[in-house]
């Protein structure tokens, strides 16, 4: 085998490794994000639960948390009130 070919093969191997890592990494990232998303919803449920009629944290103090979760409220309510999550099947 010539020097050139070895180099080429090395390069190819590196790319494959890089690619595999990327795949695995992407998957891990996706998993971590998904888990964090679920936790986020759980968190809003236990702080803002009275929106769904589940009073948990005293309302006086849950108001303090409210500004931070405004963007998530719409998606969270959808998710909580939905029977099953479509993306459950993809995880």
């Amino acid at each position, binding site marked *: 085998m010539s020097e050139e070919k070895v180099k080429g093969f090395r390069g190819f191997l590196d790319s494959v490794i890089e690619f595999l890592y990327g795949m695995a*990494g992407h998957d*891990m*990232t996706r998993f*971590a*994000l998904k*888990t*964090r998303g679920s*936790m*986020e919803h*759980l*968190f809003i449920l*236990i*702080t*803002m639960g*009275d*929106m769904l009629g589940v*009073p*948990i*944290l*005293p*309302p*006086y*103090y*849950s*108001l*303090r*948390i*409210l*500004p*931070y*979760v*405004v*963007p998530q*409220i*719409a998606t969270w*309510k959808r998710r909580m009130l939905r029977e099953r999550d479509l993306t459950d099947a993809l995880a």
Partner: protein
Amino acid sequence: MSLAEVFEKHPERRYIEFGGKGGLGKTTLSAATAYWLAKKGYKVLVFSVDPQASLSDIFQRDIFGKGAVEIIPGLFAQEIDADKRIKEYQDEIRQKILDMYGLSKVPDEVERYIQAAAAEPAMEESAIFDQVVDIVVKGDYDYYIYDLVPLGHALYYLSMATVYDQWIDKITKLRQEMEEYSKVVAIMQRKKELEEDKILRELQEIRYRINTSSSILTDREKTAFFFVIIPEEMAILDTEKAAKLFAKYKVPISGYVVNRVLPAELEHQNIPEYLRYRLEMQKKHLATIKEKFGHQVLAYVPEFERDITGLDMIHRVAEVLFGKIE
């Protein structure tokens, strides 16, 4: 042991509370104690955490919702207007949302929640206790005299504080776990900076506030808690029960004050049957009180011939409680 001695022996007890059933004269004793301390040259704040506050009546000044009002040199009184406080608080939250997201109007759903939350029954108490934190943490005064809400509320609040504390503990742990996942993502995506979790900070602040307001009630070092009783059967029974409950929540009881005692010299005067029976009845109950709380009774306050309102009457009550005022 007299009431004045308790104060002299424990100068570190700066939070003074009179507790007991509604209508036994807690406000009267709070006002008289504040008066005495102010006359001794201390800077005193007497404040009411009762939505049905009556400090305005006893001082004959309208102080409701006006912040700390100076009554005589060194004596300040404050009645917290819970409704006003809740409105201000709601506006703060709305403003924060508008600023954070650059909105011109709070989203309907969020607005509905803000309105609904304010209608919750516990909202008033939370708002008042929360404001107490601000008042006390500032530390502008030598003495803080709490005109306590009726027992039930105070106990409810104390028990809630314990529950909330554990609850916030759990939520905080969840939040910290979430942060772990965010870190993984940040590393994977090669981000340098992780956004600081503002919610976690907010949770810690909430816990600090709840604990501060409940620790004022239960701090052995800094709190003197006096039970007010009257020589009547129901009051004695209720007080015994309450004392047990307070012990459970670790509220340190410094002693008892017996209010509304008919003057004993009446016995030798020409009085109607009715009053004689009342005297007999009180005698019996006073014996019971001696037997049950004997060594812890710090003062007996007579039934006065008229309402305790205005500074002259407060002065008289203070002299009964603490002795001659210069």
